[in-house]
């Protein structure tokens, strides 16, 4: 009986070790530190949603949260909004284009009652384009989610925080 228990424990340990080793190998190696981009100002354009119908409240919240969170990073001397005339003369300007390509509006009530359903997802394609050269510096899809706490608009804050994290990483 004791032998069976020992063999069982060993087998379970071996399985666990194999699982964690596999996961560790599967994880991407951290990217080599890249030289930081040196733009001193950024212009954030209004979030577009050409492919799908996005409620205006979400569009406004995405844009405003994006501006707010990128300002918080303090990586740029100037953060210009869409349409700002001062951006025309700004040196080293990078323009952020955001295009929503996926949106699933969940339900706050369903989230709070069931925990597992009613999540809100917003998928946004972001491109940081250097205005002087016209080159795309960063092109990335960012997802904003809200799974449990908060209203649906909280997904826009999640997206903006992730975008700000990218800004912090590259600039």
């Amino acid at each position, binding site marked *: 009986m004791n032998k069976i228990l020992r063999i069982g424990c060993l087998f379970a340990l071996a399985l666990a070790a194999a699982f964690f080793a596999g996961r560790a190998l599967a994880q991407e190696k951290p990217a080599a530190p890249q030289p930081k981009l040196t733009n001193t100002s950024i212009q954030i354009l209004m979030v577009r949603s050409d492919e799908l119908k996005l409620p205006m409240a979400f569009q*406004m919240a995405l*844009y405003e949260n994006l501006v707010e969170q990128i300002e918080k990073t303090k990586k740029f001397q100037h953060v*210009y909004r869409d349409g700002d005339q001062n951006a025309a003369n700004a040196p080293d300007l990078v323009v952020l284009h955001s295009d929503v390509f996926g949106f699933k509006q969940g339900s706050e009530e369903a989230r*709070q*009652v069931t925990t597992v359903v009613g999540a809100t997802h917003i998928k946004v394609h972001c491109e940081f384009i250097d205005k002087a050269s016209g080159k795309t510096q960063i092109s990335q899809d960012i997802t904003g989610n809200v799974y449990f706490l908060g209203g649906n*608009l909280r997904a826009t804050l999640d997206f903006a925080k992730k975008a700000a994290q990218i800004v912090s990483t590259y600039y």
Partner: protein
Amino acid sequence: LLRRSRDLPLADFRCFPRFSDFFRARPGSFFFFVHPGPNRCSVCAAHGPPPSLALPKEENSSMNMRRRITFFLAAAAALLFIGSLAPPSHAQEEKTTFPDTKHVIGLVGVKHNASGTLTVQNGNLEFVKDQKTTTVPTASITEVLTGKDSERMIGGVIGTLTMFAPYESGRFLSLFRTKIDVLSLTYTDSTGAIHGVVFTLPKGSAFDAKRALVTQGAKTSVSPEAELEAEAKEKEAAKEKAKEKQQ
């Protein structure tokens, strides 16, 4: 004087001096005259009132009271009906103050989810919170749209804490919700920069706020009238769907 059938001979008509008598009439006798008042008409003079409907004198006072009540009820109903047909009053059109408005995001210098009073006056949109006023000229507003949402009755920090209450009572409390309106707008500042603002208002207020803003110079891609029509269509569609489900 009401007369349903003009083909019947005069002798077949029955005369009811009171409306209440008419309602007491037997179902088959649909040919009748009704002439309220004490005077008798020619039919009454010829035949007299129907004996089955003749009322004793004791009942006269109660009948008078009933007749008065009926008259007042009919008058009130008529007034209500006329009132509903009349165009909305001027005072209703000029509703420009919206208390219990929550600023979700967008106004410069105002905290997120701050509750205050939204006012549309003198060509400005004003949001007042703790005697601090933030102003946006309505002429600079380039888009106004309304929406609908709901929120927990018990919100904020207390609402979050209830999620940790025993026996999943927090989840149960999440079922109690209040409907709210969402008012989203964009405006441009003096440099041409675009700002987006989101407010939530008590149910039914967003449309009035939008109308007030548009009246005072704000632009919109969907006029308030078109929005009303769309809302009515949505309601009809929802009713039809509900009927189909029932069938």
